[in-house]
């Protein structure tokens, strides 16, 4: 087989990581600034399941050292241009609980295996704990708050989270003030800081060894998702919207301030992008989205933007019915990462020149397609979106499976290297 561009990049990133670093930083900046990069960047996200190519899930989620090994292996074999690897579950509620402690809030944004062991939260299930050893962790959320309690949330969201929600949602935090509670909270914060340090270390190693620039991220959340994911369960909040519309609206509004506080906590350390993963978005009809979901989310995005933090929003599912609302944001507001809009090209066209658009690659295509199919797919996509200004290719944040053939992932990266300029 002839040598492909992806093989060259694998070699080059090892031999001249500094040059590759510069090249990647440039194409990423160009894409975010809505220009046509020298080549279209490819991004890859993982919450760790992909790492079970190399390590058992029951090991990888509990051992930060192994996470480093796996992260290096991943970039060594699959030279993507932009990657966020956080083998940890959704834990934004803990950040909100600590919203008034900016030195802690961002470090506990993700819930790692050891952090789960410490607080014994009921939101998540882990391999080797509640799940068999070979499975990835799973977030299942739950219903911890009654509709009658919205008022209390509205009056003081941070207090409400600390005094009502977490004691119900975490076994070891069930008695605030008890010895177990104090010990668990202290160890939890300590563990979060340990995990954050390990990520900093991993990023430095990836930059040094393979020329992968780190992503200067901070974190925020859509207020209504906060209610759905951590308080009322998604189906609960969907019913609340119809049964208690005013309370839901006020609760979402009350959550804007603490969420923005969390988002700004990492600014002094150089954070530039607030990652905001959406969940309920595709489930809501436009009328409800526009009335209950979008206003509070938009406020979060705009507040952060005022402080020079761009948002990096993951639009889960098919966001197509709501895509016009994105145009209400100022041009260059951030990165719109789409999981699987019905028509990615249409979405791109709509946002072209206004938003940096990321996505376009179905996870199922990588999992079950062939290198040839993937090559053709990417070629077609790049041609249809030529000259690819403000575009980043990525599979959805929904986990790439460990069964995904290496050749398929390489074919994706290869195609992005191959189809540029006239070759598109």
């Amino acid at each position: 087989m002839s040598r492909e561009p992806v093989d060259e990049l694998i070699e080059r990133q090892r031999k001249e990581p500094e040059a590759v670093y510069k090249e990647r930083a440039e194409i990423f900046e160009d894409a975010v600034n809505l220009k046509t990069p020298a080549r279209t960047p490819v991004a890859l996200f993982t919450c760790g399941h992909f790492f079970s190519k190399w390590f058992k899930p029951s090991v990888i989620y509990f051992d930060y050292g192994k996470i480093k090994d796996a992260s290096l292996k991943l970039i060594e074999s699959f030279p993507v241009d932009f990657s966020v690897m956080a083998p940890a579950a959704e834990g934004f509620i803990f950040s909100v609980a600590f919203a008034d402690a900016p030195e802690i809030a961002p470090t506990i944004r993700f819930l790692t295996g050891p952090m789960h062991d410490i607080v014994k939260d009921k939101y998540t299930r882990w391999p080797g704990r509640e799940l068999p050893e070979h499975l990835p962790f799973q977030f299942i959320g739950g219903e911890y708050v009654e509709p009658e309690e919205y008022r209390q949330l509205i009056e003081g969201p941070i207090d409400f989270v600390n005094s009502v929600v977490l004691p119900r949602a975490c076994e070891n935090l069930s008695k605030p003030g008890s010895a177990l509670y104090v010990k668990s909270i202290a160890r939890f914060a300590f563990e979060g800081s340990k995990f954050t340090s390990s990520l900093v270390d991993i990023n430095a190693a990836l930059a040094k060894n393979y020329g992968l620039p780190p992503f200067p991220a901070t974190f925020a959340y859509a207020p209504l998702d906060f209610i759905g994911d951590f308080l009322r369960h998604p189906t609960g909040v969907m019913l609340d919207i119809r049964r208690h519309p005013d309370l839901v609206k006020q609760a979402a509004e009350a959550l804007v301030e603490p969420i923005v506080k969390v988002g700004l906590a990492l600014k002094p350390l150089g954070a530039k992008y607030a990652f905001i993963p959406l969940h309920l978005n595709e489930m809501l009809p436009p009328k409800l989205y526009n009335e209950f979901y979008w206003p509070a989310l938009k406020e979060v995005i705009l507040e952060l933007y005022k402080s020079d933090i761009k948002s990096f929003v993951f639009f889960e599912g098919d966001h197509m019915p709501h895509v016009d609302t994105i145009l209400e944001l100022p041009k260059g507001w951030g990165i719109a990462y789409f999981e699987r809009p019905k028509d990615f090209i249409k979405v791109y066209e709509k946002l072209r020149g206004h938003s940096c658009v990321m996505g376009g690659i179905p996870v199922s295509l990588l999992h079950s397609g062939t290198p040839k199919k993937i090559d053709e797919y990417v070629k077609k996509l790049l041609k249809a979106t030529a000259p690819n200004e403000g575009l980043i290719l990525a599979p959805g944040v929904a986990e790439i499976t460990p069964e995904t053939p290496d050749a398929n992932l390489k074919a994706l990266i290869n195609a992005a290297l191959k189809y540029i300029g006239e070759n598109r």
Partner: protein
Amino acid sequence: MSVSEEFIKSILELDERKALEIARRRLEAGEDPLKILGDLTIAADKIGEKYEKGEFFIADLVMAGEIMKGISELVRPKLKELGKVREVVGKLVIGTVQGDIHDIGKNIAVTMAEAAGFEVIDLGVDVPPEKFVEAIKQYNPNIVGMSCLITVGLESMKKTVDAIKEAGLRDRVKIIIGGGRVDEYAKEYAGADAWTNSAAEGVRIMLKWIREKAR
């Protein structure tokens, strides 16, 4: 507009109070509870149609499911009292596939399918292939529904279809896969007959299969 039409309209408009009120009134007036349940089958099909047209979203299905569940609960005691049984339109064995413990989508599908008149055998979450096979042997369903949220499910769905084939049962059932991550690629890979991202569309596909078979 007939009571029946008004009733179906109130469900489609997701007017919970009105739909339950009409159901109550119909029962009090001595109407055959089977007729009321028959209207739910029509409503479920129409809800699927609305979803396909892009007029309904998951949040609408959740509300519609809740309303139909409420109506079924109202009707059930009356049905029992009269010694009547609702005619089953078809039998569905459903579960979230092995490795996945998420059940929101599957539960919406169960609610909608039951409202539509299916007898539903819910195998729960993290269901291994052999359990699907056993259930097919035991219950002899028309349709097998497999649900997953996370991508672990893509592999499990294929394994489950393979197991059904190996057991020589593939020709006996139609297979539909559903969930947030499934699509045409996933359907082809698994070897299923249909895929859907929504319970309502799924129920509509299943009703179509049942009608086709009846012909």
